[in-house]
C-alpha cells in the first residue's frame, strides 16, 4: 500500500489540485494531498464503506440464522403430524465429509485473498475456482441428503421438525450458492483485469461472506447434527 502521509507545510496549488482530483475520483471520503488513487473511500471509522457494510450485513445475518437455529431447537422433536424427525435420518458420515469440504473451502478462500494482496492474479483465480468447486461439492452433498430424506418420507411439510430443519439447512444452502455466484463473478472480473492488486479488498469482502457461511455451518453441524 502506498504511503498515506499528508503533505505538511505551506499550501501548494498543484498539491491542492491533485487532492481535489483524488476527491472527485473517490466521490466521497477523504481526499489526500498526495493525489494517490487509494482503492476505497473511508467512513469516519477509518474502515472502507464496502467492508463496513459487509460486516454490518453479516452482523444482521447472525440474527437471521439465530432465528432459524432457535426455531429448529424448539421444534426438533415435534412430529405430532406424523412422519420421521430429522434425527432419525441423519447420515453423520456424509455430513462430516461435507463439513470438512466447507472448512477446506475457507482455507482456499483465505489463500485467494493472500494471493491478490501479493498481486498474484493466476493464483487468485486458481484459489477462487477451487473454493467455488468445494462449495459446489458441499451443495451437492446437501441436495443428495435432501432427496434421501424425501424418499424416506420426510418432506418440507411433513411435520414441524422437518419444516424447521429444511428451512435452516435450506437457507444455509442458498447462502452457499450465492457465495459460489460471487466467487465466479470475482473470477470473471479478474479475467477482465478489473481486480488489480490495489483493489484486493474486493476479494477480501467476498471472502468475508464465504467465511461467514462456513462459520454458520460450524454452528449448524454441531447444534443440529451432533447434539442428539
Amino acid at each position, binding site marked *: *500500500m502506498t504511503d498515506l502521509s*499528508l*503533505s505538511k*507545510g505551506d*499550501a*501548494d496549488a498543484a498539491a*491542492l489540485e491533485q*487532492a481535489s482530483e483524488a*476527491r472527485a475520483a473517490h466521490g*466521497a*471520503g*477523504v481526499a*489526500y*494531498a498526495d493525489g494517490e488513487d487509494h482503492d476505497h*473511500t*473511508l*467512513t*469516519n*471509522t*477509518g*474502515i472502507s*464503506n464496502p467492508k*463496513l457494510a459487509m*460486516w*454490518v450485513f*453479516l*452482523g444482521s*445475518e*447472525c*440474527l437471521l*440464522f*439465530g*432465528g432459524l*437455529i*432457535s426455531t429448529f*431447537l*424448539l421444534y426438533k422433536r415435534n412430529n405430532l403430524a406424523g412422519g420421521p424427525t430429522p434425527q432419525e435420518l441423519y447420515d453423520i458420515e456424509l455430513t*462430516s465429509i461435507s463439513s*470438512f469440504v466447507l*472448512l*477446506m473451502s*475457507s*482455507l482456499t*478462500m*483465505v*489463500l485467494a*485473498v*493472500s494471493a491478490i*494482496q501479493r498481486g498474484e492474479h493466476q493464483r487468485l483465480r486458481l484459489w477462487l475456482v477451487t473454493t467455488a468447486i468445494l462449495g459446489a461439492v458441499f451443495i451437492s452433498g446437501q441436495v443428495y441428503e435432501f432427496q434421501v430424506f424425501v424418499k424416506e418420507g420426510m418432506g418440507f411439510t411433513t411435520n414441524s421438525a422437518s419444516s424447521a430443519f429444511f428451512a435452516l439447512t435450506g437457507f444455509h444452502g442458498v447462502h452457499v450458492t450465492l457465495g459460489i455466484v460471487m466467487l465466479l463473478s470475482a473470477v470473471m472480473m479478474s479475467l477482465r483485469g478489473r481486480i488489480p492488486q490495489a483493489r484486493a*479488498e474486493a476479494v477480501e469482502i467476498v*471472502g*468475508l461472506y464465504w*467465511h461467514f457461511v*462456513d*462459520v454458520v455451518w*460450524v*454452528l449448524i453441524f*454441531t447444534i443440529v447434527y*451432533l*447434539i442428539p
Partner: protein
Amino acid sequence: MTDTASPTASDPSAPAAVAMHHDTHDDDHGHASDTLYIQIAIGLAVLTAMEVAWPYVTDGLLDTDGPILMIPLLIVMAIKFVIIAAFFMHLKFDSKVLTRVFYSGLLLAVGVYVAALGTFRIF
C-alpha cells in the same frame, strides 16, 4: 456516506479518519502467512474429527444423556467459531469496530433464542 473534510496542505491536523486509515492499512497487511492459514485449517479439521468421534468414543463409557456429551461439543464449536472469525475473517488484524459489530449481532442472535425459549417454556 457523508463527505468528510478534505485535509489540505494548510491544515496540518489530519482528521481521525486519516489516522485510523494508517492503522487499518497497517493491519490490512498484518495478516497471517499462508503457512499459518494452512496450520489453522489442519487444526480445524482435527477439531472437527474430534467432534464427530466424541459421541462414538463416549458411547458405552459414559452416561451420555445431556451435559457430558453436549458441553465438550459446544466448547469445540465455540473454539472453531472464534478461530475462523479471528484468523480467516481477519478480525484479529482488523479494527476492533468490526469485532464489535459482528459479535453484537451474535449476541442479539443468542438473545433471540433465549426470548423464544422463554416464550415456549414460560408463557
